[in-house]
């Protein structure tokens, strides 16, 4: 075999082992997180025994693990995976390192929907008003993206600018509504905007898990196209057999859906979608075929870590994961950026 081929295969092997290691670490941390919390520190081994059905838990233990912590841990993993994947996909197809899942305005749409439910008591599905509103309003933004994508000469910048415009518009409407809100409503809306993993139930988190899992492979399919677009721009992509306009639109629709599914349930969580892809670039490089899975795992780990710290640090007070992500992830992110002399391309 050719020597260059051989070293490339060895390198790919190392990257896959690294990815497997990161995945293992995440699963291990998930188990640890299940056993840790404000009320009942079970310890790692007893938790594992309960999870794998080796010991019969007491009623209280069973409730804590399965009804309280499991949905939360699952949601952290699924949310981290979805938001980080969306972030990596979007940074790639818009060719911009500043992009996060919040850039497109999907989250602002969701916030507007939540505000409608909380302040105006307006909803299409009253039983799950906030979630349903957040999701439906973010779908309106997805609709705008689809509309924009059907235009002939839409550029990457157009998407970002329209996203910013949507953010301003939705923000202004929400601000206006807060004038008419009661203190209780204001507090609820503020709490929503922190982003929290405590809302989804076991059923919610399993359904979201399946949804995200079914959308993820589509992200991987775009990996080649992203490589071509990121490397040489649209002309280069076309000559490699990629239609940049259609690919960009499809990727953005996928990312917007992933984002809105999560954010509707958790509230605003943004940082993981910006930071996890960049951290992954440092770990595994920029080839999107590896970067997308690595971002997904890194996103899950980051969310799990932030949430576990958030609910143990000042126990029994639980600090929402959105806040913890920025508090913990921000400095790590800045440190990495400084260490690599600011050099993180897209």
């Amino acid at each position, binding site marked *: *075999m*050719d*020597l*260059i*081929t051989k*070293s*490339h*295969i060895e*390198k790919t092997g190392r990257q896959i082992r690294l990815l497997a290691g990161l995945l293992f670490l995440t699963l291990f941390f998930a188990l640890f997180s299940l056993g840790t919390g404000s009320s009942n520190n079970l310890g790692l081994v007893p938790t594992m025994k309960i999870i794998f059905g080796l010991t019969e838990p007491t009623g209280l233990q069973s409730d804590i693990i399965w009804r309280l912590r499991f949905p939360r841990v699952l949601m952290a993993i699924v949310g981290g995976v979805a938001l980080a994947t969306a972030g990596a996909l979007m940074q790639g197809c818009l060719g911009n390192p500043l992009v996060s899942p919040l850039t497109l305005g999907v989250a602002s749409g969701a916030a507007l929907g939540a505000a409608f439910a909380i302040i105006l008591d307006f909803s299409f599905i009253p039983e799950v008003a906030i979630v349903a509103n957040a999701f439906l309003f973010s779908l309106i933004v997805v609709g705008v993206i689809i509309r924009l994508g059907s235009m002939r000469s839409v550029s990457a910048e157009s998407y970002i600018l329209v996203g910013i415009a949507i953010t301003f518009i939705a923000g202004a409407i929400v601000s206006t509504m807060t004038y008419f809100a009661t203190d209780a409503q204001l507090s609820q809306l503020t709490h929503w905007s922190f982003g929290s993993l405590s809302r989804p139930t076991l059923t919610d988190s399993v359904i979201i898990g399946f949804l995200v899992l079914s959308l993820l492979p589509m992200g*991987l*399919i775009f*990996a*080649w196209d992203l*490589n*071509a677009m*990121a*490397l*040489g*721009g649209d*002309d*280069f992509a*076309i*000559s*490699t*057999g*990629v*239609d940049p306009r259609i690919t960009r639109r499809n990727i953005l629709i996928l990312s917007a859906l992933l984002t809105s599914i999560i954010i509707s349930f958790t509230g605003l969580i943004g940082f993981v979608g910006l930071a996890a892809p960049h951290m992954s*670039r440092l770990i595994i*490089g*920029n*080839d999107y*075929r590896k970067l997308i899975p690595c971002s997904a795992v890194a996103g899950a780990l980051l969310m799990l870590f932030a949430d576990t710290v958030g609910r143990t640090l000042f126990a029994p007070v639980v600090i929402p994961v959105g806040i913890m992500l920025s508090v913990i992830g921000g400095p790590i992110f800045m440190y990495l950026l400084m260490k690599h002399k600011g*050099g993180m*391309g*897209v």
Partner: protein
Amino acid sequence: MMETPGELVRGGDSSVILKVENLHFRWGANEVLKNINFDVSGNEMVAILGKNGAGKTTLIKCLNRINQVNEGKVTIASKDVSKMPLLDLSKSISYVPQTVRTSFPMEVFDVLMLGRRPHVSWRTSPLDKDVVSQTLRQFGLEELAFRRFDRLSGGERQRVVIAKAVVQDPSIYLLDEPTSDLDLWTQLLTMDTIRNIINDSRSEKSAIFAIHDINIAARYSDRVMLLHEGEILADGPPEDVITRSNIAKVFGVECDITQATNDRSMNVVIGKPITKRM
């Protein structure tokens, strides 16, 4: 091959691969290309000469659908380019832009691997990797295999992008100023490598390259197309097209043309600019 850059061998006669009929292209009201007609056969290398703004790049981009033509038709092996799926088109044509500016930190090996993208579904096999490795050697790029593309010099990047086009294994190469960033030796090496690929009688590949260096055009092409103000002024063998009067008319420069003694190639000795451009 690396020891003797610059040796000249011309291709033989083959069937028509690319056909351009009545092509017009406009940017708004500005008609950039007017009624362009030409054929390119297998094993043929065609140089496009013309001054800045003559439409060389625009023409090249019309051939692989980066530019959508307003009128006329481009066919590859009798298939209409405008109706081909992009993925099929990229198996027939690969395009080398004049420069690829990027901050995307991808390794050279993976850049070349992008050339396999039209041929593989998702996973690449060791065979694909071998194609990449061999092409790296062919262009003398093996030292750069695991270097970051965004940190290479302009000339190195240009060779990498040309090598990526070769990995793509198309029947037609479109090269926009393929030697603009290269030193003299590398210019000859690169053009030799392309010439050898085109000459290979086991396949019928052809290349169209836009170029400013008249001597490179003369040395490596079977045919020269002189593009002037959006129209083809002359199209034929280098010795017929590259003449004192044509050079004066298109470039506004005096020149002497001498025939090299040891082979068929000609040398254009550039003289003074003519004060008034015609």
